[in-house]
């Protein structure tokens, strides 16, 4: 499989994602430009990544303009055909704006930008909390009750905020996300979105490689059918 990382004007985690995938996880990566009108060479085994940043300046509403970019028309088609898509931070916002994922990301409950390490439970955690940084002003996941219930029932919540010991919710929820949601996937389990930045936790030199577990479990190991079954998605 290979990864395609989309560069929007205002993307600022595109290079970090490229480095994490290429250098730390030894994956093939192709950089894609927002004005591109197709995804030649990408098949359903591959993954398109929408990185963090402030696409098109995030004026109006985060991700609202990126939704209309030429590349997003191709990404939407690609996702509907079963191709894998990951959106991190601003990428998650773009996926919600594009209706590839349900719900919306609102201004943090404390009305401030928050940059710090948080702890997560979910896919690939092997029973312990994963330490991953967040850095966002609009990361409070919101959806109506019915949607939230469906996400739970369908096992679509891939990450929830927890404390260092793995206890979900309470003060460990940094931004007021409903049901402590940090990341979700769609019903068909090929589109993934999360606010925390796994690509910032992949290098030994940074003293934290929990991000590798996330990217590996969601995509790289999942590509091996035998591993995929074992990994499963954890319902909290």
């Amino acid at each position, binding site marked *: 499989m290979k990864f395609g990382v989309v560069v929007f004007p205002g993307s600022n985690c595109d290079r970090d994602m490229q480095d994490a995938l290429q250098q730390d996880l030894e994956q093939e990566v192709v950089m894609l430009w927002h004005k591109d009108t197709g995804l030649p060479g990408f098949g359903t085994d591959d993954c398109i990544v929408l990185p963090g940043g402030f696409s098109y300046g995030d*004026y109006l509403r985060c991700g609202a303009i990126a939704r209309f970019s030429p590349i997003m028309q191709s990404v939407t088609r690609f996702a509907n055909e079963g191709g894998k898509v990951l959106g991190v931070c601003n990428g998650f916002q773009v996926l919600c704006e594009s209706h590839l994922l349900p719900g919306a990301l609102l201004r943090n409950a404390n009305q401030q930008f928050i940059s710090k390490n948080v702890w997560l439970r979910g896919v690939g955690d092997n029973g312990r909390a994963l330490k991953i940084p967040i850095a966002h002003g609009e990361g409070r996941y919101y959806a109506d009750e019915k949607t939230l219930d469906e996400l739970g029932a369908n096992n679509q919540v891939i990450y929830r905020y927890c404390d260092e010991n793995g206890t979900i919710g309470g003060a460990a929820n940094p931004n007021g996300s409903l049901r402590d949601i940090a990341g979700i996937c769609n019903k068909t389990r090929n589109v993934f979105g999360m606010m925390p930045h796994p690509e910032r936790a992949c290098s030994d030199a940074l003293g934290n490689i929990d991000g590798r577990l996330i990217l590996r479990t969601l995509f790289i190991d999942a590509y091996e059918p035998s591993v995929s079954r074992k990994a499963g998605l954890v319902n909290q």
Partner: protein
Amino acid sequence: MEITVKTAEQLRLTAEEFGLIQEKLGRTPNFTELCAFSAMWSEHCSYKNSIRWLKTLPREGKKMLVKAGEENAGLMDIGDGHGVVFKIESHNHPSAIEPFQGAATGVGGIHRDIFTMGARPIASLNSLRFGNIKEAKTQHLLSGVVHGIGHYGNCFGVPTVAGEIYFEECYHTNPLVNAMSVGVLKNGETISATAKGKGNPVIFVGSATGKDGIGGASFASANITGESTKELPAVQVGDPFQEKKLLEACLEVIHTGAVVGMQDMGAAGIICSTAEMSAKGEVGMRIDLDRVPARQENMKAWELLLSESQERMLMVVQKGREAEVVSIFEKWDLPAAAIGEVTDDGLLKFYMNGELEAVIPAHELVLGGGAPQYERPFSEPAYFKKVDAFDAAQVAVPDDLRAVAEQLIALPNIASKRWVAVQYDSTVGAANTSTNEPSDAAVVLAKGTGGKAGAEKALAVTTDCNSRYVFADPYTGAMIAVAEAARNIVCSGGQPLGVTNCLNFGNPYDPEVYYQFVHAIKGMGDACRKFDTPVTGGNVSFYNQSPDGAVYPTPTIGMVGLLDNVHHKMTLDFKEEGDVIFLLGNSYDDLGSSEYLHKIKKVEFSPAPHFNIEEEYGLQQMVAGLIGKKLIRSAHDVSEGGLFVTLAESAFPRGFGFDVVATEKAIRKDAYWFGEAQSRVVVSVAASRVEEFKNVVNGFPVAYLGLVTDGEFVVDGMNWGMVEAWKEKYDRSLESHMARLVDADACGLTQI
């Protein structure tokens, strides 16, 4: 309109300067020309009251790849064909009036200085000073400045990795906002801010020009008064999204090889960039101002020349390659327009719709050319007598040291700056190693500059200045600022490379303020020579003065150090129960200018703390040696709050305690635990390595303090409670002050 001395004075030029302009031009300037001189000869652009003394600083070194002050920022060699570019700059005056935009554009401006040289910024730092945190005005300023820095930096995508914040009454009206940027480049891919080659096109790129920020340079060169809010149009408005595109486009354009020279448009906009680039290349330019993309109609020539609209660059490119360059800016959806060409007569000629509006020899406008240079008189400040009169014997040693320590740990200058730090993206770039493993200076990976993944080169970066020390003794205080910066880098495992300085002072026409300036420069120079850290450039900000007086003299030091391999990094946190804690360096019976003396004992005037540069140098050599031999597990220097606060800060990250005893019985207890005598570092050593450690430090002043424990703070045999309770006080102090602001804001009650 008739141009007279009065017109010149309204534009903040003096009568003598007006005479000098007439002499240089051989005629009376027209209004547009006078505006150009007003901006270029302002303190901000010309350094007219500081340059004579700045030239005494050590400005040369083996590793310097450009001469100090020659380019937009300093450039030093980090080996393997790569260089580090860094600079610090003030945005004090705009931030005093409009904290959000003032701080945001300060960040934008300093990043432009870095990427205009062809470097990609990898780290941001800032040094901030405000008045009393309990004042609503301070809370408003702090909140706005932090929001502005965060907004711009987070969006632009460069991590804010380190900084400092001080609260002192003297900054009530004049807050200081100093922003630093650090970038890396490949040697040989540097772009100079020089115009060359007759006939080469001059290209304007970036945001369209509006009327914002007109006169900003001269605004920054005056005291702040009640009238200053009327100068709001002199504050610029920033757009980090434009700047991000400009960064990527400029770095891409440089790779074409078609760029002859480039300079960002900051203070004094088009006039400054055209004048400085031309003067440096000993050429002239013909500029058609009507071809400058404008966001307002009917802008006048002088407005276009002086506008400080943000996110703009001036570029000279090889004739015939314009299309190639413009196509890259089009790719990034940025306006780019040829607005003129390079000439060989040394004259700047500005046209508007074919009409000649101004003709000025470029070199007459710039520093090192026609701009005036002044020698200012100075005299010893009268308050020095009060400093000299300090008598420690008049200060009673408190009975309850623990109660004092609890107050101390929550003082705004000492307590955690978490409320601020979480608002800055510190992990973008995936290069800041100090998020997970804290160190005295932030250690940032210099990706792609040699060394394989995981063993890369890294830069240790810090800003430092305790201005109360400088106030007490400008010479020693400035030396301490340099020494502390170097100490922070050494304690992080780095080798200090070079300095950028941001010199924030009051009105230079006040002889006592000028005395502070002159002596701070002397101290800085001596210290930089000792540590072999040349001053690569920086910025002077005078007129940080209100009717209440001048701010403390604040010569902020930005220092960059190198780690050849990121694995050589040293961290500040205790690692394991049972590790042995030592204090390297001498202890002194000294309370001078400490937070304890000033904030708790309320002593306004006292000498700078003990400092001896040879002692300091020896200490740093010792620490570097111990790190090299891998004999210590943590290193944290003693600074504000003294030894106790240093121990607490080493204990906090992993939730350890300590059991320590004062070793020098002759020293008063408050001085021992809370005094701020310089040149001391707390280290921890694995019990199994203590013998080896002792052999290495044999003959060096070192004291055995005690042990790392599982969570209690035990001082001189007294149990002072659990680490969690101390950390809570330390972490929550600033938040508790600011929480009140947030509540008040929500109710619309904030008073400014």
